[in-house]
């Protein structure tokens, strides 16, 4: 199976001063698979996501991406234009805070249409129709298409960010705490939505969360991080039902106890 991975990493290491944010991290992601990265605050989850997506360079180690033609690319050796092209077509990035990704002074339709236009779409009517269709897919009323995001609730903003990211049908999406900072009821609806979209579109995702329930619902496999190291990884049910590492056991029991 190894040769089929969409994304692979070996020996990723990164220090911030004396802080070991990543230590010898290996990771594999297969097409259509959701991989959850869990661990407490400061364990290196976001750093891993940033390194895997080429937004940060590691001190040591390698990460490869396999393009649709089957060619492997060393993510940190790619020329900047090629990496940028990946980020606006094959890949997507969903931030915890949707305001970091959305243009707050641009209508919902313009936000969703931007990646299409960046990719060369030049038909206003088609772009608008695609934006409306994507708003509906993330359960935002089509008649909000001309509204500014600042009139949207937190949950709507996050769904708008997802529509903006998925409109180009990326093969791989990086998500950093996509349900963080939202009310519990809003979170549940958003998780259902993400699960439905990821399954239907066959998108592979690396999902960072500190919430094991989120990982349970969305992920096929889990990596557990502690102080920059992967202490345990495996199929979601196996890791959560039968945790082997003491730290994972602590995480699982603390959720159960809560």
């Amino acid at each position, binding site marked *: 199976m190894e040769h089929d991975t969409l994304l692979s990493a070996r020996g990723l290491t990164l220090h911030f001063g004396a802080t070991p944010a990543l230590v010898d991290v290996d990771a594999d992601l297969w097409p259509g698979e959701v991989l959850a990265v869990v661990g407490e605050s400061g364990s290196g989850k976001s750093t891993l996501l940033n390194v895997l997506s080429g937004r940060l360079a590691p001190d040591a180690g390698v990460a490869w991406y396999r393009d649709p033609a089957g060619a492997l690319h060393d993510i940190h050796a790619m020329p*900047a*234009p090629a990496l*940028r*092209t990946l980020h*606006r077509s094959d890949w997507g990035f969903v931030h915890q805070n949707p305001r970091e990704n959305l*243009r707050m002074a*641009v*209508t919902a*339709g*313009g936000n969703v*249409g*931007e*990646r299409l*236009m*960046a*990719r060369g779409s*030049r*038909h*206003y*009517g088609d*772009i*608008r129709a695609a934006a409306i269709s994507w708003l509906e897919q993330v359960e935002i009323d089509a008649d909000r298409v*001309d509204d500014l995001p600042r009139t949207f609730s937190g949950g709507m903003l996050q769904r708008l960010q997802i529509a903006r990211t998925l409109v180009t049908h990326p093969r791989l999406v990086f998500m950093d705490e996509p349900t963080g900072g939202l009310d519990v009821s809003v979170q549940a609806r958003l998780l259902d939505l993400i699960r439905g979209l990821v399954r239907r579109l066959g998108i592979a995702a690396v999902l960072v969360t500190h919430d094991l329930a989120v990982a349970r619902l969305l992920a096929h496999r889990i990596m557990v991080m502690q102080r920059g190291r992967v202490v345990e990884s495996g199929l979601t049910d196996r890791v959560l039902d039968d945790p082997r590492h003491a730290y994972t056991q602590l995480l699982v029991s603390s959720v159960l106890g809560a």
Partner: protein
Amino acid sequence: MNVASGYNFAYLDEQTKRMIRRAILKAVAIPGHQVPFGSREMPLPYGWGTGGIQVTAAVLGRDDVLKVIDQGADDTTNAVSIRRFFARTAGVATTTHTAEATVIQTRHRIPETALRQDQIIVYQVPQPEPLSRLEPSREETRRMHALADYGLMHVKLYEDITRFGHVSISYDYPVMVDGRYLMAPSPIPAFDNPKMDRMAALQLFGAGREKRIYAVPPYTSVRSLDFDDHEFRASRAPHACLLCGATDSYLDEVVIDDQGGRMFVCSDTDHCEGRRDGT
């Protein structure tokens, strides 16, 4: 030999002119790409065309015939003072007739008369960066140009059509040069944009305060940004010029009395006079 003694030919010293010519050559080699240059202090405040003047000074030869226009007119203070400046410091002949000029420095217009291969038009540019109002970071706009990442400009057009039903940019309407670089045509009316496309004359752009030079070589494709289903249209006031009757020229609206009376006349004064003289 200089007309006004104490100045080098066309005011700038030869070393500065060579530096500007190198920037111009680079700009011609990469159509639409903004080339940085060491802009000099000129005896005019920024905003009075110091970038255009430096480019003109660098390309001017003793046999050139210079025309200077400001918003289409040869007789405004700005045009007159720049024309006089070069008459004094370079001793070159000047003209108000487009067809007689070899170098035309302009602010805000392109002459109505089609330009020829043996002419150069120099535009005064206040803001060379077409993305400046959409993306404040110069580092980011440079990256966008390097990667031809112009989706953001189309987002602006999308938003305009969504809000107003049409693109609301009437001056400095962004263009793609040679299918590669997004370029600000300077604050000419969008009406003039089609004249830039495959123009026979060399087009040079100088931005003094922003220290940038860019160029469109002769016969280069210049396309106004648009959508397939909302095509660019060069619009003008739906009137005939009250002086010459032209229905195809760009018009200025002029107040003619204190009763609120107005009339529409050609903004290109030379073109208008030529039509009235029957030349």
